[in-house]
C-alpha cells in the first residue's frame, strides 16, 4: 500500500485523526479556506455592530426563512416567498439589506441601502423587493373598513446627481402591516455600476396624513419594522455559456 499511497494525491494528505481530538490546525485552516472560497469571500466578514436583532428576526420570519437542519442540507426556503425554479438553485444568492439613513440628507423620507456585491463576483439580479411597514394610527371603524393610499417610491439612478425614477403602488390597508414594492430594475441598475452598490430611495405617500397611516422608515424606537430590501441574484453567466442537460 505504501507505494500506492505515495503515488495517489488524495490518499497521501491525511490529517491526524479528528476522533482523537488532536485537530491538525492546517486541516482546520484548509476547511475554513474552502468555506470562504465557496462563498466567494476573500476573508470572513468583520462584524462589529450586527443588524439589530429585532430587525433581523422580523425579516427572516417575514420571509419564511425555514429552520436549517444541523448539516445545512435542508434548503432554506427562498427569502422572498416566491418558489425558486431549479435551474437557479445551484448558484443563487439572496441578500437582505436593511435601510440606512444618510445623516447629510435632512429629508425624513429618504433612506438608502448598501448592497454588497458578494465578494466581487458578477451577480445578475433576478428579483428585488422592498418591504415597508405601514402603521395605522386610528382603528378602522367605518363600514368600508379599508384605507387607500398611493405610495410613491423614488429611486435614484447610479452616479452623483443622476435622475430619479418612480415606482408607485396603490395600497389598501385594513390594519398595520408590511407591503412590498418591486424594485428589480432599480437594483439591477445599481449592480451594473461599481462594486459597492448604494441605492438611494425617497418614499412618499399620498393620502397617508388624511387617512392616519404612517410608513415606518427609520425609527430607532421601532427596529423590528425597519424597511428591508430582498435581492435575489445569481452568478451572471458567461455570454456564450453552453448549457448541457
Amino acid at each position, binding site marked *: 500500500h505504501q507505494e*500506492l499511497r505515495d503515488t495517489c494525491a*488524495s490518499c497521501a494528505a491525511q490529517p491526524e485523526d479528528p476522533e482523537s481530538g488532536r485537530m491538525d490546525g492546517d486541516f482546520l485552516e484548509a476547511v475554513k479556506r474552502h468555506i470562504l472560497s*465557496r462563498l466567494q469571500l476573500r476573508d470572513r466578514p468583520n462584524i462589529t455592530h450586527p443588524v439589530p436583532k429585532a430587525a433581523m428576526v422580523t*425579516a427572516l420570519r417575514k420571509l419564511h426563512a425555514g429552520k436549517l437542519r444541523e*448539516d*445545512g442540507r435542508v434548503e432554506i426556503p427562498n427569502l422572498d416567498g416566491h418558489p425558486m425554479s431549479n435551474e437557479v438553485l445551484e448558484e443563487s*444568492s*439572496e441578500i*437582505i439589506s436593511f435601510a440606512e439613513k444618510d445623516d447629510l440628507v435632512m429629508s425624513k423620507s429618504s433612506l438608502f441601502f*448598501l448592497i454588497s456585491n458578494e465578494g466581487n463576483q458578477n451577480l445578475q439580479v433576478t428579483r428585488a423587493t422592498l418591504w415597508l411597514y405601514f402603521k395605522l394610527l386610528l382603528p378602522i371603524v367605518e363600514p368600508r373598513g379599508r384605507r387607500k393610499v398611493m405610495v410613491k417610491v423614488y429611486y435614484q439612478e447610479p452616479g452623483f446627481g443622476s435622475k430619479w425614477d418612480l415606482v408607485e403602488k396603490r395600497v389598501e390597508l385594513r390594519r398595520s402591516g408590511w407591503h412590498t414594492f418591486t424594485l428589480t430594475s432599480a437594483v439591477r441598475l445599481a449592480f451594473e455600476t461599481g462594486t459597492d452598490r448604494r441605492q438611494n430611495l425617497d418614499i412618499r405617500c399620498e393620502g397617508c396624513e388624511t387617512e392616519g397611516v404612517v410608513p415606518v422608515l427609520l425609527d430607532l424606537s421601532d427596529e423590528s419594522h425597519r424597511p428591508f430590501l430582498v435581492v435575489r441574484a445569481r452568478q451572471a453567466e458567461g455570454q456564450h455559456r453552453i448549457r448541457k442537460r
Partner: protein
Amino acid sequence: GLECDGSNDLCCRQRFYIDFRLIGWNDWIIAPSGYFGNYCEGSCPAYMAGVPGSASSFHTAVVNQYRMRGMSPGSMNSCCIPTKLSMMSMLYFDDEYNIVKRDVPNMIVDECGCA
C-alpha cells in the same frame, strides 16, 4: 460507499464536523451552526476493483474489469475520492451587514469511491 471506522484502511468517508462556535464564526454565520467537512481517505487496492459500488464512475468500472483480469491499461493507481456530493444552504452577514442566503452546490461529501 464505506464509512471509516478504523477497522481497515480501505477507501472510505471520514465524517468530520466543525461547530462554527468553536472556530468563532458563529457571529457572522446565522445558519447552520456547523459544517460537515467530511473527506475521503484510504487505499484502493486492485482487489477493490470488483467490489460493487466502489467504482466512482462507469469509466472506472470498465478499467476495473481489465484490472481483475490482470491486464493493466495505462498507469493503474487509483485514488479514493468523493463520488457523491450534496448542496449546503448558508445564511450569513456580509461586510455591509446584509443578510445573505447562499445555496452552495457540492459542498458536503456524502460518499467516497475509487477512481
